């Protein structure tokens, strides 16, 4: 396959996955914004979305406050915001357009009709439909695209590059989701005080729901919601499809199939080992934020190495 085609497939998958993850993230935050305003649960809620100074500034250049309506406009429909859902769907669709000769017609039609629908949506439409419903629709369109890809693509290189994009993006997103809450981690101490527990319940419960892991948490831990266990579930548990562990396992599998003797496969194995040998209590003691940041950097390096090994960048 052409290296440029592989690159397009990789990014097509990443952008589509990113649009879904942004929708998930926003759904979670939106729900939290509707909770009773107890003990500042809402303070900094929307602002927390903008983790870097550059992102904050880009937002503040257009809007003056971190409130539901402007933030959702900016994150969902703003065509000048390269990470808005609209922009992600557009980028995904352009990458499909560049590779449609290796994709199935169904894939093209699915993403193109998603794009055509989102292109004509404005904020009023989204309000009419309901924020929750609209974000849900985005998620469903992403599910549909993934299903179509799974159900129609020939199992060959193109399929593998698509898969790789999906899982790298998903792993990064799960980390980002946790990192956004990293400042609330307290390195020691049990969750004793009643009001903290309530807040944790809301915040971490919402987070779990946004990645469809709430039920799994209940089944596995059978206890009240403890941030530490949430992190454990979403990083180290291989059974949860959106956990970092599950994603990295998939990446290793893909790379082993494509190029077992390559730098990038080695790197993916190292990343997997890091998770396999990690224990949540130790991670907690050394600092959650740092652990997540290091791992994010590791994934980023892997992504670059993949691009190098498959000649996507010269």
């Amino acid at each position, binding site marked *: *396959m*052409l*290296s*440029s*085609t*592989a690159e397009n497939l990789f990014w097509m998958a990443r952008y589509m996955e990113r649009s879904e993850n942004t929708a998930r993230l926003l759904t979670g935050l939106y729900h939290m914004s509707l909770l009773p305003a107890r003990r500042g649960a809402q303070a900094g809620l929307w602002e927390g979305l903008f983790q870097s100074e550059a992102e904050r500034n880009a937002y503040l250049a257009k809007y003056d406050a971190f409130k539901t309506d402007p933030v959702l406009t900016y994150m969902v429909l703003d*065509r000048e915001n390269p990470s808005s859902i609209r922009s992600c769907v*557009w980028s995904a669709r*352009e990458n499909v*357009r*560049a590779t*449609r*000769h*290796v994709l199935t*017609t169904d894939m*093209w*039609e699915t993403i*193109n*009709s998603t794009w*055509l629908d989102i*292109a004509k949506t404005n904020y009023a439409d989204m309000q009419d439909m309901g924020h929750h419903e609209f974000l849900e629709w985005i998620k469903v369109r992403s599910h549909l695209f993934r299903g179509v890809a799974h159900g129609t693509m020939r199992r060959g*290189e193109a399929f593998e*590059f698509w898969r790789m994009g999906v899982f790298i993006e998903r792993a990064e997103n799960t980390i980002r989701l946790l990192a956004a809450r990293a400042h609330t981690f307290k390195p020691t101490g049990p969750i004793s005080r009643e009001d903290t527990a309530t807040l944790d319940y809301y915040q971490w419960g919402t987070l779990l729901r946004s990645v469809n892991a709430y039920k799994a948490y209940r089944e596995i831990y059978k206890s009240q919601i403890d941030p530490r266990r949430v992190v454990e579930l979403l990083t180290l548990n291989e059974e949860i499809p959106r956990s970092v562990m599950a994603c990295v396992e998939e990446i290793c599998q893909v790379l082993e199939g*494509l190029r077992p003797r390559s730098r990038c496969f080695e790197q993916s194995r190292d990343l997997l080992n890091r998770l396999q040998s990690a224990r949540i209590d130790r991670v907690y003691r050394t600092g959650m934020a740092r652990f997540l940041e290091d791992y994010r950097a590791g994934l980023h390096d892997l992504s670059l190495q993949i691009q190098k090994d*498959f*000649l996507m960048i*010269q």
Partner: protein
Amino acid sequence: MNLSDREKPKIFDEMHAANGDIRPAYRDYSAWLTDQSLERLRQKHAQADLLFRRLGITFTVYGEDEGGERLIPFDVIPRIISHEEWSVLERGAIQRVDALNAFLHDIYHEQEIIRAGIVPAELVMTNEAFQPQMLGLDLPRRVYAHVSGVDVVRVDDKTFYVLEDNVRTPSGVSYMLENRETMMRLFPDLFAQSVVAPVDRYAEYLLRSLQAVAPLGVDDPTVVLMTPGQYNSAYFEHAFLAMEMGIELVEGRDLFVDSGSIFMRTTEGPKRVDVIYRRVDDGFIDPLAFNPDSALGVPGMLSVVRSGRVTVCNAMGTGVADDKAMYCFVPDMIRFYLGEEPVLQNVPTYSCRKPDDLKYVLDNIADLVVKEVHGSGGYGMLVGPKASKAERDDFKRRLKAEPDNYIAQPTLALSTCPTLVEEGIAPRHVDLRPYVLSGEKTRVVPGGLTRVALKSGSLVVNSSQGGGTKDTWVLEAPVVIEEEE
């Protein structure tokens, strides 16, 4: 349905004879059409639009943002060609392309047609599209134009004129294929009982032609399609054809020259390329040899072409055969190279570089269509009867200043075909572009691109100027059991 009285006497309608009878090729269709309500047709029309948009059969409009993708209007009423008419068109188109290929081989070799005094040397040698780098180069099977579009119009029941030849990188064939696909999706009942010749083998024939011209000694050639990229107006077609043929769609940046061959960058390392079906113009193909600013091409490609290690389709320098000044000589080429009389006629053409012709054109400009020799897409053109006095005077000035740059033709009464427009079903002028493939043999897929001028009375069918397209049906020969004589 009635034709407007004004148009009744002179203009040939594809469906209706002058006495109001339905022509034989349209009989079945017409019977079906009378059962359809206008409302249903409009519904189908809207459905077609939706289908085209969903499939992304759009062309890009430059300078607009992500919304800059437009549809070429599609008309749901097909243009139908009888088996007998088609066999003439087919023979004529093949003959013409064979002659053009012979001409191209000749002018890049012995130039016998110039020595014989048939084509003036300066028309060839000073032609912008002439590529001296191609001189003396032997191409596989002597084919230069592997894909050609021969634009044909009809003026009466017997006469088809060739309006122009397109032997550079003719486009539009995806519309021939997708229009059919769409018609079959919209009106399956129409096809169930009809005898419409299928067009869907085009891609297979194209691939076969491309494989047939691989460099000598290459058994299982790697063929690629080279596109200027996804923002080119014909990108959909490039992707579509690559997909249909199952070959890689490459851009200049995917290719590089190494030790005398061309390679593409793949995930498994460099892979040699043997045949390039390029949809990039001559001037952009190799920045070392042609346009140094081109970011679309491959540096050093021409030297590989010259060494015969890669075949570029269409060959570079084919444009010399299809400009409007050379057009006048095509009938002579057919006689000279093939020893045959042309099956299809040229439109009577005045070359303004000849003083007598120029005088005639200046005197009769109100009745003529004046075209720039190198113009295309309906630009740089004056339609005398429709033009204002000021426009005509302006063209007269230009003609006197640069007579070599213009030709003129009588205003043709292009045939009309019933078309669904706002007022209902009304006659609109059409042309036809069959696609001719040359490789191991020369062939035409039964069909083509019918373009239709959607504005009432308009003769300009170009999509850039408000033209649309129709599905083109060629009826297969009726199966008749005849007794042997």
